[in-house]
């Protein structure tokens, strides 16, 4: 059995987020995820605190670590100064590094996130841009959003002079030099490697699940699939 707890300890967020939990439950009390998922951050912290590698491995492969919304509501309340959400972040990072995330439905969604957000960062320098919030994938964005996307030049043009162009202002295009720096940062700090790991593990799992690799079809599967067993 690998030393999962030691691996977690390498993450400063775990060291910061977990001292000694006394299971009072103030975190779960206000947790938005606990309100709607079969989820209890207190128990996760408690499980990690056991330092039992088998328990932690099970966690890394579980659905439960993927419910947290990272709102950090748990942080200000904890009487022991813990931050369950930090523990979750550390678990999620390790789960992706080890490729365990593909073992759970919610974990597999990391591919969708990597492609939607991660790739967009490397493409545009921003997490979100109007064009990647496609109304057909975001019906909840409503009629006004569709109107905006249909008339983007006309509407955004009223608020920024650099829509899609280089310069200072909202929704500008980042210069090539800037993008090069961002790419460099991702390479140097392991961001790219991390992205690649997500792709590789997802591809492996996709094939296991009968897809022809982590293609668009698999992307849509992980993006839309809800077994409804999370509540």
């Amino acid at each position: 059995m690998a030393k999962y707890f030691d691996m977690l300890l390498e993450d400063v967020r775990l060291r910061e987020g977990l001292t000694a939990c006394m299971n009072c439950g103030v975190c779960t009390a206000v947790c938005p995820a606990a309100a709607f998922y079969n989820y209890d951050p207190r128990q996760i912290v408690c499980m990690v605190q056991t330092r039992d590698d088998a328990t932690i491995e099970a966690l890394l492969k579980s659905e439960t670590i993927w419910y947290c919304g990272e709102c950090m509501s748990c942080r200000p309340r904890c009487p022991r100064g813990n931050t369950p959400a930090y523990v979750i972040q550390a678990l999620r990072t390790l789960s992706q590094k080890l490729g365990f995330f593909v073992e759970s439905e919610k974990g597999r969604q990391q591919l969708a996130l990597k492609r939607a957000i991660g790739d967009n960062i490397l493409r545009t320098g921003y997490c979100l841009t109007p064009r990647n919030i496609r109304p057909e994938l975001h019906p909840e964005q409503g009629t006004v959003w569709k109107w905006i996307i249909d008339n983007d030049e006309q509407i955004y043009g009223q608020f920024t002079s650099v829509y899609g162009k280089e310069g200072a202002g909202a929704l500008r295009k980042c210069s090539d030099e800037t993008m090069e720096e961002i790419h460099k940062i991702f390479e140097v700090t392991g961001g790219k490697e991390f992205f690649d790991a997500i792709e590789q593990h997802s591809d492996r799992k996709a094939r296991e699940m009968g897809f022809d690799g982590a293609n668009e079809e698999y992307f849509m599967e992980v993006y839309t699939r809800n077994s409804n067993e999370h509540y």
Partner: protein
Amino acid sequence: MINFGFSISKPRTIDIDRNNLHKSNEIMHEMPELQTCIGCGTCTATCTAGNLTEFNFRKVHTLVRRGEYQGAYVEMNKCMLCGKCRLLCPRGINTRGVVMLIKRKLGDF
């Protein structure tokens, strides 16, 4: 209708104000000793059914006391009534009686 691809999740929070505590009160009235549970979990630890399933007696009876009846009947039916928990309960709660009472109240027999 628009197909959003999701629906509004149902709340899981135990809402004492919204829960109908009628049956819970009846249960507590018939079995006041259940209130003396100190939540030690011995019952769950020794449970024959709990050894084989996720059945957690302490959790189920606590939920029932809070007025959360959904699923409790089905859960209680995992119990084999073997009575080990009764022998171990440090507060001497008649746990088998509790199982039977909850089943009776929630199963309407």
